[in-house]
């Protein structure tokens, strides 16, 4: 009797969880690793979506078009890092203001260059059998988990990951040990940009791509980064899980809008109780336990 409802709730959760993870991950990598709050994050997503839309319109298969979106955004991020972002390392507030300026410019340039909508992209894979929703959302969830796993592997197990983390922790020492820190910053920023592009590409089939497309990801991504705290991957997972649960439960009870409102209220309460985010609280707890032993 309650089984279909439970399935619906589960599906809702999976959909929202995937959305928050994918919306956040590019921002979280750049913020967590480099301390840059990229307010143009939404517009990086926009680049990925537009590149994908136009590649599909040009006749490329969807998967290839999405790859084009990722590569285009990573390249775009690389150029921006070289010319602008690199001057702002260590200037947190300035970096926010500048990236906001970039965001304004990009939204308007997109509107001038491409008009108010991009060519549409169809949703692949068809509908689910029991629950009311496309199979594609499940694919998105799998990709979201895959991205998190991939990032974990990249930053913990590879030589590049170790060098990148060394650069972010102590640039001077890393450089004296022979790490090309300049390249590490560049590469990390490009990875973050590429992830934003991936998000834009993945959601191009399910959301109308307009110049304001990126803005629809902003609230979720910023809220999740703040709730998650400074430890990037774990924070993203925990925050997405927490916010996704609240959102899915209330969406099921009272509709999409109330789900959104409940999630934001939960986020504000969470920030009030844990100003350093979930991972900040965890590391506090760990310290406390460490002391009492």
């Amino acid at each position, binding site marked *: 009797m309650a089984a279909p409802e439970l399935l619906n709730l589960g599906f809702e959760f999976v959909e929202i969880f995937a959305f928050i993870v994918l919306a956040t991950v590019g921002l979280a990598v750049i913020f967590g690793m480099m301390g840059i709050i990229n307010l143009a994050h939404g517009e990086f997503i926009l680049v990925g979506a537009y590149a994908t839309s136009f590649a599909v319109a040009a006749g490329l298969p969807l998967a290839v078009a999405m790859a084009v979106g990722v590569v285009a955004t990573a390249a775009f991020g690389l150029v921006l890092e070289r010319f602008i972002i690199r*001057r702002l390392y260590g200037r947190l*507030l300035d970096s926010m203001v500048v990236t906001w*300026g*970039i965001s304004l*410019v990009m939204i*308007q340039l997109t509107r001038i260059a491409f008009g108010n909508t991009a060519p549409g992209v169809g949703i692949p894979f068809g509908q689910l059998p029991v629950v009311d929703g496309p199979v594609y959302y499940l694919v998105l969830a799998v990709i979201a988990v895959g991205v998190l796993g991939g990032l974990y592997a990249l930053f913990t197990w590879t030589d590049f990951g170790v060098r990148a983390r060394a650069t972010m922790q102590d640039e001077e020492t890393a450089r004296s040990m022979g790490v090309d820190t300049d390249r590490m910053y560049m590469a990390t920023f490009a990875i973050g940009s590429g992830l934003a592009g991936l998000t834009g590409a993945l959601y191009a089939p399910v959301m109308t791509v307009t110049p304001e497309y990126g803005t629809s990801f902003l609230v979720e991504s910023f809220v999740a980064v*703040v709730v998650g705290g400074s430890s990037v991957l774990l924070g993203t997972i925990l925050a997405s899980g927490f916010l996704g649960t609240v959102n899915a439960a209330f969406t099921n009870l009272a509709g999409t809008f109330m789900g959104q*409102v409940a999630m934001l209220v939960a986020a504000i309460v969470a920030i*009030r109780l844990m*100003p350093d985010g979930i991972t900040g609280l965890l590391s506090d707890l760990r310290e406390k336990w460490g002391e009492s032993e």
Partner: protein
Amino acid sequence: MSVGSSDGPLAGLRRPFEGPNTMGNTPGFWLGFVVAVAVLAALPVLFGYYAAEIGAVFLAYALLGVSLAFIWGYCGILSFGQVVFFGVGGYAFGVVAINVPTLTGATLGLLAAIAVSTCFAAALGYFMFYGGVRNVYVTILTLVVALVLYTFMGQTAGGEWAIGDARLGGFNGMSGVPDLGIGIGSTGLEIGIVAHYYVTLGALVATYLGLRALVNSHFGYAMVATREDESRTEMFGYNTTFIKFAAFTIGGAIAGLSGVLFTTQNNYIDPSVFGITAAALPVVWASVGGRTSLLGTVGAALAIQFLDYQLALSGSEWALVIIGSLLVFVVLVMPEGVAPRLRDIVVDYRSSEPTPADAPAGTEEVSD
């Protein structure tokens, strides 16, 4: 204070507004200030009714910019959500004034709007500062609040979203907001277009002078100390949390007032005031003009909005591109903003000249 160089007869009058926390502590500066205010006051006379209508909007924006420069430049709190209080003030005025149609409504509306936006800022400030939220997280939270209000007000199109006779109207906005007025019943002063311009100018000048006095007071020193080094200031026994909370609340009240002046000028407000573009504008004005200079922010707000208006008139779509690029350029090239840079140039020029107080230098400083 080096005011002693040429104490005029008005030195006593100037003293409360001068100190190390503001630029322009010379008679030349004040002369220029008076001239600038006089020019602004003459605009409706010179260019007529239409100039007053447009100009009042620019001045209301300038007031909004001042509210951000005050908390960001002097207390180090970068709020991306000043438009929240601006919009909340505007909507609150609309709700009250539409429901109480006489002059009583306009008067009550003004008081209610300032009260509501002040309380809203106090509540948000309490939540953030007493909760230990700091730096970028404050910035992100304020932006999120603005975006949430944008979404929320956008879905209020249905008839059930009405407070008394005032329909919130969703993305179509709330129309039919009465003019500003002071009085009870039908006796009192109704403030028309030209009068509204002067009220807005008066509010801006009064706020500017008030904030100058405030930042040069004991509280202002404590604000600047908090900005410079919060933990050290706390060690000296200051309650920095309260200082930030109070500054943020004052900023919210000013933004609310500017929202009322904006809304009563247009007789209309819609959710786009909470949108990401609108939210960016105060940050652009303060960054370009120089956040540590209240007057620089006013100048930048007037100049940028005038440019924006001219571009819109000529049918150009490039305004936001230019504004955004200007922001990036200024932060990269002169992170402090234009006014502090100009001041440095003036100071360098003066110290290289043997006669310090010559007239041209004085007027140059006015553009600060």
